[in-house]
């Protein structure tokens, strides 16, 4: 149909400067089939969002609280004091000559990183319901950001450990350079558990009441307040199924020179990776329903 209108600002196609490659590959929307359809491309496209979510979590946490960043220090210190009194003094846990506070804190740090980030991640999806219902982006970014933001807290509380090591004049072992590997193991475990819990929590809202309980039990299944050599024989194998055992053992060995982790570390690593991938799998299988159920 022709037009009699005066030539107003007609529709001109200005090629957009943002993404020339996009016009070649259309975005396809259709029901997903199969159990493994992971959209890696989107995860890459939205990598900056992940950064901003981490940045928001960190910023808000330290802005909102009265004590600000000191919270990351006070919390482990208080916990350390309690544990030292109860398990170090009253129960008299044998730590092979290592000062109990040092022994405890070396395990407490990675444990707290795990416990805090799992708690944050579990509620992260439900807490972001308003965004999930209104905007598309890879939902995986939400629990992932919760875990990554925990690294900042970890870094801060790590300063206490350094101070304690100076106080006891306890030099780190050469294996201290392996520390990032054990932190990575803790992170993979936290991500895996975080994916599981955040996805379940989005579907079943009562799960959030169970999370703190689960974390509490998990603490006692991890050698944070006691040394792992209390566990003997075949029980060790079962014990090592808990990936945090490998993490805590590794931390102690690398930092204060307890006995090196045995081959059972491989069991921990395997479980961590299994939790991570099954978590990813479960998350993406329910991801498509999030906007409908949240």
């Amino acid at each position, binding site marked *: *149909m*022709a*037009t*009699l*209108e*005066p030539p107003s*600002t*007609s*529709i*001109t*196609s*200005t*090629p*957009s*400067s*943002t*993404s020339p490659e*996009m*016009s070649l590959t*259309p*975005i*396809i*929307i*259709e*029901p*997903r089939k199969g159990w493994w359809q992971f959209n890696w491309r989107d995860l890459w496209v*939205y990598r*900056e*969002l992940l*950064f*901003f*979510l981490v*940045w*928001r979590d960190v*910023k*808000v946490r330290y*802005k*909102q609280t009265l004590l600000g960043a000191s919270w990351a220090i006070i919390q482990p210190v208080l916990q350390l004091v309690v544990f030292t009194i109860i398990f170090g003094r009253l129960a008299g846990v044998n730590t092979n000559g290592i000062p109990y506070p040092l022994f405890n804190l070396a395990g407490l740090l990675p444990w707290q990183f795990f416990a805090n980030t799992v708690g944050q991640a579990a509620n992260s999806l439900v807490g*972001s319901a*308003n*965004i*999930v*219902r*209104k*905007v*598309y*982006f890879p939902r995986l970014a939400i629990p992932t950001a919760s875990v990554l933001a925990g690294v900042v807290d970890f870094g801060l509380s790590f300063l206490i450990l350094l101070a304690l090591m100076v106080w006891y004049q306890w030099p780190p072992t050469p294996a201290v350079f392996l520390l990032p590997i054990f932190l990575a193991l803790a992170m993979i475990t936290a991500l895996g558990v975080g994916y599981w819990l955040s996805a*379940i929590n989005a*579907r*079943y*809202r*009562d*799960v959030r009441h169970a999370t703190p309980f689960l974390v509490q039990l998990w603490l006692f299944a991890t050698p944070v307040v006691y040394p792992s050599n209390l566990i003997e024989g075949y029980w060790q194998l079962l014990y090592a199924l808990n990936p945090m055992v490998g993490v805590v053992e590794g931390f102690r060995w690398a930092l204060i020179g307890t006995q090196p982790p045995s081959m059972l570390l491989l069991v921990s690593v395997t479980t961590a990776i299994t939790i991570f991938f099954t978590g990813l799998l479960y998350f993406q299988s329910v991801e*498509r*329903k999030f*906007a*409908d*159920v949240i």
Partner: protein
Amino acid sequence: MQYAIRARDLAKQYQIGAIKQRNAGYVTLRDAIVERLRGRRDKPAATELWALNGVSFDVQQGEVVGIIGRNGAGKSTLLKVLSRITEPTRGRAELYGRVASLLEVGTGFHPELTGRENIYLNGAILGMRKREIDRNFDAIVDFAEVAQFIDTPVKFYSSGMYVRLAFAVAAHLEPEILIVDEVLAVGDARFQKKCLNKMQDVGQQGRTVLFVSHSMQSILRMCQRAILLNQGTVVADGPAQQVVGVYLGKGAHSIAERVWPERAGAPGKEVAYLRAVRVRDADGDISDTIDIRSPVTIEMEFTVTLGGYVLLPHFRLYNEDNVAVFTTLDLDPEWRRRPRPPGKYCARVTIPGNFLAEGSLYVEAALTTLDPPVKQFAERDAVAFQVIDSLEGDTARGDWAGSLSGVVRPVLPWTTTYEPLA
């Protein structure tokens, strides 16, 4: 021409049972386990609701398409599916280009963060790259008119500032396809206008816009084309004016008549109040579609409660561009300059055929006392009607089928003189 969106047979099913449960509270793991133990694996009488059922359409690059329909027609579901928030149960859509959806402004704003920080956060959530936000930062702040508060946490913003900032971020996205839902229902009139202009710019830059709104005026102003949904299917798809006409004709209640049954709630002051406004076609029937060739009568019923004033009932007609086409005052000689006693009145005016232009017309019904001039009521959009040009050759458009601009469309006598070439 290049496609921006191709949708084929899109369908989305919800379980009504699940929706009910969700509204009552939330599904709990405990319930799920108990149900399973009792062996009720198939949900009790969960009825299926097809929010979308076989929607197909194509949108060309650069088109601005309005999506209209009543509540529950499937508009929001369609936008959610196209913006990948929820997955279709069936069907397929292809989107050529980067998509940004604005289903709500201010998504992801954090009250503790400052305006500056929220621009980056919100921009990232909407899919902008940091580099893009950097480049547009000044323009966003400028557009939102919040420059002096940019480093203040947004929890201290007024709701107007908040919305302005939120829209400003969204307006500076540079997607090839923009999906917008009713965001303009917020903000003051001036800012709304600014937003509409901004969105029109977007359309003119060759970007594609899908726009859902309940405001037919906005739809008609923004969009060349509209798609009407009803119960999850496409009922009409075509030039915005015609589709809006179809929609208004089939709406839940006629917009050609508006009645205020009680004094309370009716527009008015101490001298008079409005009781009803109606649009009637040439046969005297209440109608919201008027043939461009036929006269249309508009009437207002009002009650005078305090006698002794000379009254000026009047109508003002606005077109879809919000242009006042004309104002017409009651010139009935019987009541002109004559103080009116209390009582019920009905004032009518007839607008001749072949005068109004094609499109939607919105009627403001108003009444003022002459001395002192006190407005008793002025009801904007009291009623509305569509003027339809039937293309039968005997209207002002003659044999021309394309679009015609202008706020009136009179049939005027033309004469032509002719001289053959020497």
